């Protein structure tokens, strides 16, 4: 009798602990995506992000596990690591002296959308060039 009861409780214990493990698995972080050389070629990373071994879902959070379905992460996504636009503007403070700080320009201040100039999976496109095509080269390096 006693043995049967012990077995019964043990059974219960194992089933519940198994269930809690399953539950824990479904709750933890975004899906891991296997980054193949082909995937890397299709969606190349900028050198400074590549160096940190970031994975797709570090930026594309909560967007599933198929890179083809991923959407732009917007300013909020970028700033979740890069703090604030003011912070980024302050880091180029020396350029304020000549009003050439791209993060704090005389036209827009520290208010532009990040992807106005910066792209991750294709070459960036410095918006200043649209008007200051000759000068920008001497003001700053190619947009990372």
């Amino acid at each position, binding site marked *: 009798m006693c043995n049967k009861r012990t077995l019964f409780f043990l059974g219960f214990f194992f089933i519940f602990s198994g269930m809690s493990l399953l539950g824990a698995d479904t709750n933890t972080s975004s899906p891991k995506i296997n980054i193949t050389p082909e995937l890397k070629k299709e969606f190349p990373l900028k050198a400074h992000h590549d160096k940190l071994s970031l994975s797709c879902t570090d930026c594309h959070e909560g967007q599933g596990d198929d890179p083809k379905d991923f959407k732009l992460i917007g300013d909020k996504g970028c700033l979740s690591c890069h703090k604030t636009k003011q912070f980024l503007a302050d880091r180029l403070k*020396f350029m304020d002296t*000549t009003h050439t700080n791209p993060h704090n320009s005389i036209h827009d201040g520290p208010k532009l959308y990040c992807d106005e100039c910066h792209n991750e999976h294709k070459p960036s496109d410095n918006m200043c060039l649209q008007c200051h095509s000759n000068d920008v080269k001497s003001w700053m*390096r190619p947009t990372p």
Partner: protein
Amino acid sequence: MIKKIFLIIKNNILLTLLVGILVGLICSWVMYEGLHRTSNDRFCIVCHEMRPMVAAYHTDVHGGNGKTGIKVDCVTCHLPHDNIFAYIATKARNGVMEGAIHFFGNPDAIDWQANRANRQHFVRDEACYGCHTNYKTNEAISVKGREMHEHYVSLKGTDKEIGCASCHVEIGHNGLRSMLNYYNPEYKFYKGKLDKQKEAVEKKLTEDMK
């Protein structure tokens, strides 16, 4: 002669012990004072070419520019702390090297801006989490921040290992890139246009170092 000394020691064990302790204490004190007095910005700046770095450090929380004024010394972040012998050896080697470059080399030719890419090798991670003990769990850090700290831990010991300074680019030296530019602009366009800023930085630094 040696026998005689042994005999004296044998006959005066207590005295020998006391003298031994005293000599030991004096040596420790000299070592402590020596290490302590040669560890802050005032001392390091004598030989190291680092006026812009120190100026940037003074505008950072780590350099005393926080609410509480707490300040960490140069060596706290830049020397190894896992082993006292490695600490002293690195300190001595750096001292000799930097002194030699300062007096006999050509420090003006050093490209500090480019050197910033190696920042993770100049900063000791164990020093960071020696103070920031709860960087993995601290809820004052954003969710993303904690996720990234987890990422950092997961890369530890692999060939992709990164350092604290890999992401925290100007940590300890707030505005370092601008300071370096005031002294030696990275683009020709700014040459001669940032002299006023440099002058202001120099003035403040000289005052701070008094």
